[in-house]
């Protein structure tokens, strides 16, 4: 082979390899981009970095899976919708039991699970949302409160909001309300929900939460912070009050008038009998 023929062969073969590898790289690159989409029901272990950083830091070793005492975690296999080999759990199947010593984080060799997190209550794996108020039986006026009672941070992450039952007119509704400042997204509530399909579900925080603009100032919060109203003194509220009551805006709200200071008796029978007396 002459020198130029050799050079030609070298160049064509190099170009061939480069092109082949280029195509493979491009395809893998596109697939990589797609694989960032984490299904909403796949939850990362506690302390997981945000998804983009997690996919760079997690080396798919499965040590967190091994050290989870409840077999909550598993590694995504080919065919799962989760990035291959990364750890996740599905709350409805096996939720996170929120171990106090957080063995999964300790097991992580790379820091994909944040070793700086030492209190499991600080975990934000997701956020529980009472997602179907039509199906949740509490909204129908039935007593349930299973999610409220199973919650590991009972009373803080899920509270019960008592509301009037307009249908019966005389009962209360015990409505579960999730508080995002305490909910860790462990999924115990989603798993425990008694319905065929859970009415409370752990969602990724970015899907579950709204966010006010920074410019919102809530008067009552600002007042509490400043110790006084920022918009001038409160006028005494004098209009449309029930008879015999006054209103203290600064303090207790509606205040019944002193007994004895009322133009009519406390006893409703007196009103009825008074009518008779007048005859």
């Amino acid at each position: 082979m002459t020198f130029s023929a050799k050079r030609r062969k070298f160049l064509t073969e190099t170009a061939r390899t480069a092109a082949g590898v280029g195509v493979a790289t491009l395809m893998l690159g596109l697939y990589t981009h797609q694989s960032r989409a984490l299904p909403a029901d796949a939850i990362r272990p506690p302390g997981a970095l945000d998804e983009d950083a997690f996919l760079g830091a997690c080396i798919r070793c499965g040590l967190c899976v091994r050290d989870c005492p409840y077999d909550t975690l598993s590694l995504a296999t080919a065919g799962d919708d989760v990035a291959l080999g990364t750890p996740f759990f599905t709350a409805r199947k096996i939720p996170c039991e929120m171990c106090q010593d957080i063995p999964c984080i300790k097991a992580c060799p790379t820091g994909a699970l944040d070793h700086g997190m030492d209190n499991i209550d600080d975990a934000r794996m997701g956020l529980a949302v009472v997602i179907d108020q039509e199906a949740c039986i509490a909204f129908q006026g039935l007593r349930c409160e299973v999610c409220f009672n199973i919650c590991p941070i009972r009373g803080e992450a899920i509270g019960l909001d008592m509301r009037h039952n307009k249908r019966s007119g005389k009962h209360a509704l015990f409505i579960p309300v999730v508080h995002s400042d305490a909910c860790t997204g462990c999924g115990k509530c989603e798993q425990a929900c008694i319905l065929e399909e859970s009415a409370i579900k752990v969602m990724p925080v970015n899907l579950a939460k709204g966010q006010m603009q920074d410019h919102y100032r809530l008067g009552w919060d600002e007042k509490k912070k400043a110790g006084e109203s920022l918009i001038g003194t409160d006028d005494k509220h004098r209009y449309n009050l029930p008879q015999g009551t006054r209103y203290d805006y600064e303090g207790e709200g509606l205040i019944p008038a002193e007994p004895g200071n009322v133009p009519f008796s406390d006893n409703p029978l007196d009103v009825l009998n008074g009518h008779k007396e007048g005859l």
Partner: protein
Amino acid sequence: MAAGKLHPGADAIAVKGWFGAHKWLILRRISQVGILILFLLGPLAGIWIIKGNLASSLALDVLPLTDPYVLIQSVLAGQRPLETAIIGAIIVAVFYILVGGRAYCSWICPVNIVTDTAAWLRIKLGLKGGATFSRNARFWLLGSTFLLALLSGTIAWELVNPVSILFRGLVFGMGMGWGLILAIFLLDLLVSKRAWCGSLCPVGAFYSLLGHTSLLRVSAAHRENCNDCMDCFVICPEHLVINPALKELPTGTGPIILSSQCTNCGRCIDVCAENVFKFDLRFNNTQTTSVTNKHEVLS
């Protein structure tokens, strides 16, 4: 027709017996399957000698081991791994610098069993030809895995890495991962001889670079006994590495196989009826001139 042999190693079996002619192969399979069993003892029998997988593991609750290749990708993706992972990677790297980088391929990697089986079937079925891939493609692919980690901020290669998929699959659950392993088997069997391990796999490429100056090497110590039966060339997964050591080229090379593509699998030792080969240290190269890479460039 030496290269068309259906039974490479037949002479060695006649001389050394079947076990003698498969000694290193058997030891390698014991190593590969044994490591898998060690990892499986925990989940299956509750005996936790080692847990994790080849990406990172913890042996006897104290010894961390981490794949330096995956860790480098994580660093390129912009992450700062913890000390545990770094120490683990250094331990693994030092080990392979001693025993030969691509010893990972032949003594640990489970895909090697798949591709060896395909290569064995190719010989038995007399399959020849097919597509050719550049043996340097793996280095291009290695570079592209680094580039993808850098650009995407994720360990992109781990989404498709057959080595991880097979080993992790066997230890943690396979899912549809068998499809990829079957594809590699068929690639090696029908499309191109030794295509995956010999041309494409960037993991092997990484470990060959890691073990570029590794201590433990195969030596054609008694090359004067070579009777040109070609069995070693037929059986060797990286047959280009043998020639400079076995045949004293005009440049004067050998007898140590210095090419970092040699996987230290020891099959050449097995199939040689004349006992030409043995494991040795790289310092015992009697020749002064070393042309480790020259040969690779020529290929």
